[in-house]
């Protein structure tokens, strides 16, 4: 009899617990608002960093895929929020924040790499140009002397032309 009562109590407890579990973990409007603001802020800071990395020539295609996916999640969050489904909205917003986690640091790394690569390329190109210009300067002096000599020799070899006066 005692055993039977315990089982009934347990079943009743489980039933009551299942009825209230949703309410315990349900997101209210304020929590969802906060989650949406956080997600938007996380997404924007990731976007800004990726944009900066792209501007200096970093390959951000993989990061863009993550950004797009996070953007979709945030849009979904706002769409269900408007329909009053705060639970789903909160979940989407949190997934969005989770999705962009680490993008900013990854983009910063790519930006540094791209900047370093640009500096290296610029140094090599500038060095080659400088050497080229120096060579051109030196060769132009010799070239000028040579061409000037040939030009003058050409003039000296010219024979005076005698013209008949009328």
């Amino acid at each position, binding site marked *: 009899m005692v055993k039977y009562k315990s089982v009934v109590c347990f079943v009743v407890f489980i039933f009551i617990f299942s009825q209230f579990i949703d309410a315990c973990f349900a997101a209210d409007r304020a929590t969802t608002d906060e989650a949406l603001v956080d997600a938007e802020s996380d997404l*924007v800071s990731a*976007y800004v960093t*990726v*944009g900066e990395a*792209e*501007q200096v020539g970093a390959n*951000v295609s993989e990061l*863009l895929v993550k*950004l*797009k996916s996070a*953007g*979709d999640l*945030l*849009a979904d969050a*706002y*769409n269900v929020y*408007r*329909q009053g489904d705060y639970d789903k909205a909160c979940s989407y917003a949190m997934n969005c924040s989770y999705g962009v986690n680490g993008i900013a640091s990854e983009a910063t790394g790519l930006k540094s790499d791209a900047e370093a690569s*640009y500096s290296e*390329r*610029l140094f090599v*190109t*500038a060095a*080659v*140009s400088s050497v*080229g*210009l120096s060579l*051109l300067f030196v060769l*132009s002096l010799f*070239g*000028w002397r040579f*061409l000037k000599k040939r*030009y003058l020799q050409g003039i000296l070899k010219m024979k005076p032309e005698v013209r008949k006066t009328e």
Partner: protein
Amino acid sequence: MSFEDFKVFYVLSLLGLGSIILAPTLALTVRLPSGERFSELWILGSGHMAEDYPFNVRLNETCKIYLGIGNHMNGLQYYRVLVKFRNGTESSPDALNATPSTLDPLVEYRLFLSNDDVWEKEILFSVQDFVFEGNSCRVSRITINGDIVNLSPIKIATWNEESKGFYFQLFFELWLHKAEFVYHNRFVGIWLNMTKSV
């Protein structure tokens, strides 16, 4: 050729050669001004052409259009598209004053586009619930790409004597993220005539 002309020709040739040698370095350091910055926003009909747009809409009939955005802003951009629905008298975007419609969006899309990148999405929509009451038509629910949107307040259009129909407009506003989202002064839309099934 006189000696002076020869000298000038020689110096000009050297300057030309010098420019060619310097060109790679200049290309890396000098940034030429970019062209006009703009974004494109378009909708296409069901055949993916600028024709066959949905017009006469019946209850629960699924209509298809394509929404597209092109980024020519010279860098990565963060866009938001707000999908709105209005009757003929409600607020619409104002292209002259660059202001958006004051209506709440039904759904929104957010996207990131690199320079010269294009985004296109198939939009399937159907009007799920509308009734005709005398001289007016009341729309209370729309489905857009599977999302059921209950309109609040309910949209009411009165009979348009001139164009012979109950007209509503489904339109898309383009917003661009700067320090925050600002209306990008671009919108596209289609007029829909609610029609009874016969």
